[in-house]
């Protein structure tokens, strides 16, 4: 047997390689949930193909007593259920690690490694003996390896059973078969291997007050709580589950108890051009409306985004980013839409962006997005990504302040209009660049003609330079006002004073936090500014100015965040260093560590 790793309790990575459409998903989340319920911080990343059945899929579970939830970049235990990818899965295991495979079929002798422990379990055979139907056999194989892991990792079987019972509450018959399969694996492992492995879990109490939730579900919940009533969409991975969740929550919370009538309206549009149009038609009428989409959808919404900017209509979009350009890799993650989203559409246009770092912020910033859109009267795009949107993240419980009331911004009521002498849609009454608006059907005096063509401050059609300029100059002023209204960045100061700063957005956060902790141990310090909104606002520029050198961490090839910083702040590009990760898998802390270690290395000019 290969030389064992030193004991690694509650601190390792487990990865399951499988084929999609074989029902491994439920088995994998069962594993993760078990660890979570044992009180141990855990995260799971799903790497699935862009098809429905038969292609490779991986599930990576990180167990970290210290609560580090980004990828570690290494795999300590591989469950290799997919012969197609066996070779590369084998290679991926870290020295001293373990690999479990289905020994029903002989394994190519060449496919071996002396430096890891390889554990064979005849999963297929066991299941074929115990179960009759073909489909069940396939499904139960998954439960069987969960059983094997239960033994090897010392998982709490009571917890597992409860979870299984909850899962199949509606089909109790399935509970027994699943537990049976589980026992098969468990017993086999106990009988044939020294259990538990040095790699194992041990109950803690570090997950109380936390939930495991994906960003799309959390964002959908945010839409419900913000009072959104109209949702328009066209299905696209990885944003689809956001609208699915919204529908689910509305069916639960938005049906009239008596009549069963719905207090929401979801329209599955014919495409993204229509989806954003539907949103704008709804917000024009004062409803809170949103559309979830991904890169290709944003591209198709480009014309309407410029229209909304110029006509000053609120709109909330969720861009759950995937790998571009073009169709790209729909089931991989990236932050590649920053530039497009910020300046979408021809002519001088700018859009407000929000950057959640995890599902909890998807919930919170969804609500912020609706308030901002109404207040600033412009589209607000929540820049999520596949990693946040579709993976389960451990985060603090979501909380809600009963005192919250939507900020509907400057909307004139029938009474106000009745009292008013005149109403002009595009006049800057308050000097903040934000005009007053009215809603159709409310009052004759409120009527105005909304148009994407040239208009003056009174809303009249114009082709006059001065009148046109007055309007677009006010829009620029409104943009400066927006910078004072958006969420401030989250700033983490290093324990020691430092001239180095890290700037990033969104899902890079977990990796950065871990990297900073580890670097600090090596005496390398950097402050960290997690930008949460575009336009950037004073706090961001201050942070930049306070640092001689800034590392810009982002998940795209072209340093798009850096470009935005160059365009919208005075901070010199010469003092920015890009740390780019754009392969499509969630970021791990290593690339950041290495970049800063290098920069710190003697003889390297800062």
């Amino acid at each position: 047997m290969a030389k064992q790793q030193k004991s690694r309790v509650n601190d390792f990575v487990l990865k399951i390689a499988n084929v999609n459409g074989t029902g491994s998903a439920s088995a994998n989340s069962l594993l993760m949930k078990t660890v979570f319920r044992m009180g141990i911080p855990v995260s799971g990343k799903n790497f699935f193909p862009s098809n429905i059945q038969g292609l490779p899929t991986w599930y990576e579970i990180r167990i970290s007593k210290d609560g580090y939830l980004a990828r570690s970049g290494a795999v300590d235990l591989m469950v290799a259920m997919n012969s197609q990818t066996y070779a590369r899965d084998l290679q991926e295991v870290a020295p001293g690690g373990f690999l479990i495979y289905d020994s029903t079929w002989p394994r190519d002798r060449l496919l071996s490694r002396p430096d890891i422990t390889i554990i064979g379990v005849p999963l297929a055979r066991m299941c074929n003996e115990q179960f009759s139907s073909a489909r069940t056999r396939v499904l139960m194989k998954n439960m069987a390896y969960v059983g094997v892991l239960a033994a090897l990792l010392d998982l709490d079987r009571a917890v597992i059973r409860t979870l299984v019972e909850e899962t199949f509450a509606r089909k109790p018959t399935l509970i027994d078969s699943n537990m049976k399969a589980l026992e098969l694996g468990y017993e086999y492992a106990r009988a044939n291997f020294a259990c538990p492995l040095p790699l194992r879990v041990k109950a803690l109490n570090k997950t109380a007050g936390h939930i495991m939730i994906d960003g799309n579900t959390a964002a959908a919940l945010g839409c419900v709580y913000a009072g959104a009533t109209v949702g328009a969409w066209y299905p696209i991975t990885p944003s689809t589950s956001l609208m699915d969740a919204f529908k689910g929550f509305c069916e639960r919370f938005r049906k009239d108890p008596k009549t069963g009538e719905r207090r929401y309206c979801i329209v599955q549009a014919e495409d993204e051009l229509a989806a954003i149009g539907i949103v704008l038609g709804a917000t024009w009428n004062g409803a809170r409306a949103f559309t979830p989409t991904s890169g290709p959808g944003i591209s198709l919404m480009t014309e309407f985004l410029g229209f909304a900017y110029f006509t000053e209509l609120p709109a909330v979009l969720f861009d759950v980013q995937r790998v571009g350009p073009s169709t790209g890799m729909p089931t991989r993650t990236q932050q590649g839409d920053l530039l497009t989203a910020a300046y979408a559409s021809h002519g001088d246009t700018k859009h407000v962006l929000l950057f959640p770092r995890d599902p909890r912020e998807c919930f919170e910033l969804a609500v912020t997005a609706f308030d901002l859109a109404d207040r600033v009267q412009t589209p607000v795009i929540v820049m999520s990504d596949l990693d946040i949107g579709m993976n389960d993240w451990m985060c603090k419980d979501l909380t809600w302040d009963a005192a919250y009331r939507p900020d509907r911004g400057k909307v004139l009521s029938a009474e106000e209009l009745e009292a008013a002498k005149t109403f002009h849609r595009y006049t800057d009454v308050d000097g903040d660049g934000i005009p007053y608006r009215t809603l159709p059907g409310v009052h004759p005096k409120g009527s105005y003609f909304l148009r994407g063509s040239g208009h003056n401050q009174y809303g009249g059609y114009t082709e006059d330079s001065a009148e046109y300029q007055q309007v677009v100059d006010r829009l620029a002023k409104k943009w400066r006002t927006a910078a004072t209204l958006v969420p401030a960045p989250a700033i983490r100061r290093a324990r020691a004073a430092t001239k180095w700063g890290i700037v990033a957005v969104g899902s890079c956060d977990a990796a950065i936090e871990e990297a900073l902790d580890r670097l600090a141990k090596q005496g390398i310090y950097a402050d960290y500014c997690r930008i949460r909104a575009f336009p950037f606002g004073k706090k961001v520029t201050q942070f930049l100015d306070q640092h001689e050198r800034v590392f810009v961490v982002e998940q795209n090839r072209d340093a798009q965040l850096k470009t935005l910083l160059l365009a919208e702040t005075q901070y010199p590009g010469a003092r920015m260093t890009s740390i780019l990760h754009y392969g499509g898998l969630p970021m791990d802390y290593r690339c950041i560590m290495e970049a800063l270690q290098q920069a710190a290395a003697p003889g390297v000019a800062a």
Partner: protein
Amino acid sequence: MTSIAKPKIVHPGLARNALGFTVRDYEGGMSTLCAGCGHDSITAAIVQACFELGIPPHGVAKMSGIGCSSKTPAYFLSASHGFNSVHGRMPSIATGASAANRGLYLLGVSGDGDSLSIGLGQFMHAMRRNLDMLYIIENNGVYGLTKGQFSASADLGAKTKKGEENRQPPIDPVQMALALGGTFVARSFSGDKEQLVPLIKAGMSHRGFALIDVLSPCVTFNDHEDSTKSYAHAREFNLRAIHADYVPPAEEIMAAYREGEVLPVELHDGSRVLLRKLAEDYDNGNRGEAIEYLRARQREGEIVTGLLYIDESHPDLHGVNGTVETPLNQVPYADLCPGPDALAALQKRFR
């Protein structure tokens, strides 16, 4: 230059409708279209119809895309909110407006370029949803605003001023609507106010998607000799197949019709349309037959007009969705937010 506001001089003698409004109250800004443009006549018909219907002007939302036709909402109902969308995308705006504010009368005006080229997809899908709106296509067979290129409704063999001939079959919104399951399918001619006004009134009152394809000559680019969309051509070949009179709710049918001469259809608001066949051989109960009839007449150069098909039985967007009667933009926030306790309870699911 800024749009021109028309002075509203109200003649004391001017008739008033049930709400006490005069026809002036339904007018809009001064038209900037070419003198004689068919679109202006349709504008006049809309003003007349809304006045006669006695809708509060601000109870209507008028929407359009881009084009000369799409400019017209600025020329009627100045007390209504107007929405001049981007080219070809008005149907999606209307969908959102309907979803958010079902209390409004939605009136969409578009052109043949706006609806049948760039906007064809949205147009057909709005119809498929049976969106509760009146959708008027001001059809002149050309792109007027961009100076006279053929549109997708140009007829086979139609010629441009320069003599270029169109050799692609037209997309006929009426045939599309019939084949797609449209619930209110009409065609008219901008010069035929007597036919157009009641159609508009019926279309406004229909619950669902009411399409009126109005032949509306472009005097500047498509009113010449060999044009099949000219005034002369329309006047000569307009075949009124089935006339629709509109009778408001709770008003009994005055005019004396001979037995079996008219077929009354009740609309959701209690008003009725009285269908009177003018072309005996036209079967208004059968979509396929209707299409065949249109195609046959078309081969003879004739344009079949009237309320060609109506079916009140289909649910609109909200009927399908089962939405509350209160327009969604008026549902109080308290009825939308589940509150903190629900949130706490919900999260058990995520542990």
